[in-house]
């Protein structure tokens, strides 16, 4: 497998995106192109990428260390050289595999979900571009190249969240996502620039960085680490930059699935893992990251408990699960974090696509308290959703159990008992709010009967595949303690951090405790919502329902102040000062011109008189100057 095929993993979706975009433009301006042509190219691209990625995976399996492909110098100034480099090592190929796999599933699903939409071609053009950006981010061999992909996913998320841009709310959500990401991107950029300043001369690909990062002074490393993590906060929606993710639900459901499962939000985790050599040198920053993750996870879980919009609940659950991932990567257990990324990708994609199927079936109804009793109507969706919900709740043997448990184990093993406690509590909350969603949607009584819309097979098939994945993906990382191989850990050996030393009995006990927490959450949800009466009024108020008024606080503290500042600049400085100065200057010249123009009276005698005045002034000057 020649390493230059690495670039084709990125280029195929990119070219496909361009092709689809051109076709779409042709379609809307010249002649309508049937949807099936769009579908063909749109589905082909991620699958082809997956296929190439799989070939590289086989290559790595056969003992190749890593693939590096540097086709050309992207920037070269005075000895500072940044190559357009692709790196295919175990981490990036691992990411490529599940990104393209989940991405392909979501593409197939989207071809059913978006059927008949006016912007079908445009949607898939964006989708493929999203894939290309994410793959570039993953495969980049230098932080600068990674930043291209980093910005690319930001752009695509903006385009897709605001996909139905005729609705002002969607546009606002898109802007919010873009701006919150921008704040994070600034942090990321600051980190890169700092890093470049210190080691850029020695080469700026990951290999060189790993070799030379130790020459950077420690306090600078802390700044770099925190700056990069601010970037991760923005992309991976951690406190305080998480606000965009719940609003990102404005986009079509496949977009949410793509953002939450395969692409965007995992970028932050991936980036921290990619910079593991840097974070290994500053473990206290890692602990800080872990705490941010823990609190994000708790905070989002609490908010999710009171939400009524099915997609919003899932969005907050994503923030919560991302928190777990950051706990793991913050504590140096990168492989564990990536394991959770991996399992999460399966069950979150499954849950979102299941929710999308429910929404489609109910003619775009998103409020779970207006659903109910769907078990008998859409049994397939019911069963796959059950698998997903069990997986996210951490019930063995579903995938979520293994990864989440391992995260908690790592926290316990690092003696971070507060983080462990928060994680455990959040696990219980997760089980509660997920089963609240599940029961209210599929069970209950006194629900309104309604006509259902058929769900096409193109939507059902990926759901089934993902359900299998969600159920069994966890076995990839089957703990060694039970005699498993933990393939993830051995595959990502370089990223697995300090080995865990824990007694067998203690491990069993920890697992039991977390399973118990999940079971408690489920039973509370069962008693409260299994026989939920849909006749009662829905309570949509309170501190938690309103997400702790974080949006309002941000609006008050930042948005309004910015608006005031802008108004001040626009009205006082621009209108009042700059415009006025410029206008009065120009008016002054016009008036001056008018006055001077009046002298141009074509009156010869006046001209002669001016001459005479000049002559006498000159004479007076000379008389005074020369004296008597």
């Amino acid at each position, binding site marked *: 497998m020649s390493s230059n095929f690495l670039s084709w993993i990125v280029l195929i979706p990119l070219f496909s995106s361009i092709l689809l975009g051109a076709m779409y433009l042709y379609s809307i301006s010249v002649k309508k192109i049937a949807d099936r042509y769009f579908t063909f190219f749109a589905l082909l691209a991620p699958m082809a990428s997956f296929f190439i990625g799989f070939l590289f995976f086989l290559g790595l399996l056969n003992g190749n260390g890593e693939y590096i492909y540097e086709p050309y110098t992207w920037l070269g100034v005075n000895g500072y050289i940044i190559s357009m480099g692709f790196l295919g090592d175990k981490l990036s190929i691992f990411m490529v595999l599940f990104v393209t796999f989940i991405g392909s599933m979501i593409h197939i699903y989207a071809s059913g979900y978006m059927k008949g939409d006016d912007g079908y071609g445009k949607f898939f053009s964006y989708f493929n571009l999203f894939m290309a950006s994410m793959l570039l981010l993953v495969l980049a061999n230098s932080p600068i190249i990674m930043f291209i992909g980093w910005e690319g996913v930001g752009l695509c998320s903006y385009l897709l969240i605001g996909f139905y841009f005729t609705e002002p709310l969607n546009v606002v959500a898109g802007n919010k996502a873009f701006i919150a990401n921008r704040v994070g991107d600034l942090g990321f950029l600051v980190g890169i620039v700092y890093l470049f300043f210190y080691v850029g001369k020695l080469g700026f690909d990951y290999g060189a960085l790993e070799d030379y990062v130790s020459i950077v002074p420690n306090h600078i490393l802390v700044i770099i680490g925190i700056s990069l993590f601010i970037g991760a906060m923005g992309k991976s929606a951690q406190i305080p930059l998480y606000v965009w993710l719940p609003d990102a639900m404005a986009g079509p459901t496949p977009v949410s699935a793509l953002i939450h499962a395969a692409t965007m939000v995992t970028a932050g985790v991936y980036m921290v893992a990619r910079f593991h050599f840097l974070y290994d040198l500053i473990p206290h920053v890692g602990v800080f990251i872990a705490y941010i993750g823990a609190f994000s996870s708790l905070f989002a879980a609490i908010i999710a408990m009171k939400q009524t919009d099915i997609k919003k609940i899932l969005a907050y659950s994503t923030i919560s699960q991302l928190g777990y991932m950051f706990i793991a990567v913050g504590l140096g257990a990168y492989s564990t974090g990536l394991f959770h990324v991996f399992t999460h990708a399966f069950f979150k994609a499954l849950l979102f696509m299941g929710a999308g199927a429910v929404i489609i079936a109910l003619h775009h109804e998103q409020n779970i308290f207006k659903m109910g009793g769907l078990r008998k109507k859409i049994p397939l969706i019911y069963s796959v959703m059950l698998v997903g919900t069990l997986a996210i709740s951490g019930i063995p043997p579903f995938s979520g159990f293994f990864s989440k448990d391992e995260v908690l184990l790592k926290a316990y093993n690092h003696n971070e008992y507060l983080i462990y406690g928060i994680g455990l509590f959040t696990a219980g909350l997760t089980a509660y709010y997920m089963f609240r969603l599940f029961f209210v949607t599929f069970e209950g009584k006194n629900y309104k009967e309604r006509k259902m819309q058929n769900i096409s097979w193109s939507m059902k098939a990926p759901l089934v595949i993902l359900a299998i994945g969600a159920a069994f993906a966890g076995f990839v990382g089957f703990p060694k303690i039970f005699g498993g191989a933990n393939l993830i850990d051995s595959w990502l050996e370089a990223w697995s951090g300090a080995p865990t030393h824990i007694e067998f009995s203690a491990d069993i006990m920890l697992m039991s405790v977390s399973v118990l927490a999940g079971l408690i959450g489920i039973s509370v949800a069962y008693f409260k919502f299994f026989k939920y009466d849909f006749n009662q009024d829905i309570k949509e108020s309170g501190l938690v329902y309103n997400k702790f008024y974080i949006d309002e606080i941000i609006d008050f503290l930042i948005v309004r102040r910015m608006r005031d500042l802008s108004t001040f600049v626009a009205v006082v400085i621009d209108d009042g000062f700059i415009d006025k100065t410029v206008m009065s200057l120009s008016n002054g010249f016009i008036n001056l011109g008018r006055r001077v123009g009046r002298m141009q009276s074509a009156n010869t005698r006046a001209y002669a008189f001016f001459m*005479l005045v000049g*002559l*006498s002034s000159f*004479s*007076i000057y000379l*008389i005074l100057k020369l004296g008597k």
Partner: protein
Amino acid sequence: MDIIFLVLALLALFGATSTIMFSNTVHSALGFVVTVLALAGLYALLNATFLFMVQIIVYAGAIIALLLFVIMFLNIQQSHAPKEPNKYLLMLVSAIAIVPFDYLLFKAFYSMSFAGDANITTKDFGNIKMLGNELFKNWILPFEAISLLLLVALIGAVVLARKKERA
């Protein structure tokens, strides 16, 4: 000599003043003739006999005659004369405005401190022979240039004053 100078100077001043004072153009022209003649007399007093002649012939004879001819030709009546209600005010203002320049000129010449009579080397100073010698020995190029200028002025005058042919 003094008396002659005095009379001629007064005549010149009288003529100049009447030139700019009269509202009738023809009267002004006649005033100007007086000045020109008085100046010719002064040239004679200054031994410039040839210039005395030229002044009378060119100015009084040609220029003023041409001027009067044009006035007659255009048949300008007293009624054509423009209304000048604040003529005297303007005269006063401009007379005051010119005083510094006059003072400066006067100072300049005064500082040359002309003393007594000048040194006339030859008896025929200023007569036509001497002037002709000087003119055709040392001033031949300017002289030719002036003759060319006169030719151009002649042609220009014909072109300018010609009646436009209706196309």
